């Protein structure tokens, strides 16, 4: 059975671009437009991996969603790939090696999303 990827992002066009790429690579894709709906979808769809945008309604909504996922016994083990903004203009800096200690995510992916990179990162982090 195809592995299921949940994309939580409020940018519809970006979601579609990622959906086409991931579906072409053989994944099943579901999506949610904000953090709250995303958490619901994790419960109802039990995805094998979550692609999570940092900046949605607020500049750090993605962080809060990530923490909620990790605090919930039912979904704490789902791998998270965090989509980060372009060029870190918000003052937040991401460094997977350093920040993974306090950011409970498995990988970072910078926008614009390169399709090959997206597929690679999803494949690397999804559990067999």
């Amino acid at each position: 059975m195809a592995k299921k990827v949940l994309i939580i992002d409020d940018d519809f066009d970006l979601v579609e671009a990622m959906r086409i790429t991931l579906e072409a690579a053989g994944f099943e894709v579901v999506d949610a437009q904000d953090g709250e709906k995303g958490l619901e979808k994790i419960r109802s769809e039990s995805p094998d991996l979550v692609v999570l945008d940092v900046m949605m309604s607020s500049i750090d909504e993605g962080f809060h969603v990530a923490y909620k996922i990790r605090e919930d016994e039912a979904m704490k083990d789902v791998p998270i790939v965090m989509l980060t903004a372009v060029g870190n203009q918000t003052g937040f800096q991401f460094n997977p090696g350093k920040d993974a200690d306090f950011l409970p995510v498995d990988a970072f992916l910078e926008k614009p999303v390169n399709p090959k990179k997206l597929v690679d990162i999803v494949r690397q982090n999804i559990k067999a």
Partner: protein
Amino acid sequence: MSLFPETPVFNTASMLRRDKWLIRLRWLALLGLTAGVIYFSVFQLGDSDIILKISLVAVVLLLSNSAYWAYATNRKQYSMLELVSLLNIQMVVDLILLTLLVYFTGSGESPLVFFYLFHIILASIIFPGGFSYIYSGLVMTFYSIPLLLEYFGVIGHIHFFHGDHPMEEPSVIILKWVMMMITVFGAAYLAQNVTNRHRRVYKRLKSANKKLQELNESKTTFFRFASHEMKAPIATIQSTLMVVEDVLGDKVDTQVHDMLGRAINRTAEVIEMLKDLADLTYGNFQEQQRFEALDLKLMLSELVTNNKVDAERKKQNLSLNLPRRECIYWGDMMALKKVFLNLITNAIRYTQTGGEVSVTLSHHDEYYTIDVQDNGVGIPKEEQVNIFKEFYRTPSARKQVSEGTGLGLAIVLRMIELHEGTITVTSNEGEGSRFTVTLPLEEHL
């Protein structure tokens, strides 16, 4: 160029205000003089002949000041030269009248000599710098004329006060006391006037400066948000284009494939420029700055190592020279990394295959210097002043390397200013360039 250029402190409006102020002061002087004449007559100080002459001076003062007053209130337009001439005529006439008064009241022994000082102070308040020295010379000339004329017997000395021991006369003592009081308070008034003027100008400048700062802040806020708002949709466009390219793959002919590739590159360029614009505003917001104690040697080593691949691709020798001693610096890591990454990539970019690029850190007593030197194309002298300007790219740089936003060195300068450092460039066309960054060490940190 005008002889008297208008400045915030010297303009026609302010000169006219000073003229009117001077006229008001002259009315006061006339009042004092009239009081003096009455006092002399009542206490029978001085010859009636002299008192008459002093009265005549008072009449001349009355007439001349009325004329100045009529001129100042009835005209609407003045040129700067006209006002300066008018004020000078008034001041010189005042000096002549004062000299007559001083002569009538005993030349060197006249208590009125102090009033010469008022003219010096007034001249320094009213006119641009330099005039007060001309007036000092004038005052000394006018002071000397009666003294010399008396000495050589051309005119007679006037013993203004009667009696052998004038100081014993209460009327004389009171007169001297009043003169002294006018001198002391007059000096205090003028000095206060100068100070108030300075304070007013200072206040005006301060508020103007604050407005400029606010303007600059709103500009950078605008930059920051505009670039941020534009980045997300363009990133999505690029992501979409990449997916299209990926999905279509070899299904389309090369022409379409190339077109897609160029579109992707162009969106990448726009994103690069928006990132750079956001960087230009970096540090204008307190919450963005992250100063910490950082190891310059480590930072530069990392940067040089990361750029080795690019240098090797062009068969260039990228070397790093570090001092033996520890180089800890209180700075913003992200900003400084941007500075040196920018300088190193520029050096590699604008140096021919097989060239040399070196990075040298030196520890001085009060500052660090970091030299990034290459033996590349160099920068023509006439273009060196422009390279730190936003969006400027030298014509030769454009010809040589197509990519680049022209914001790199503007960002470098901005980040260095954030550290109160400096950057200088020495370069000869065809011989290479050396960028020297100076980062001041602050002892108190």
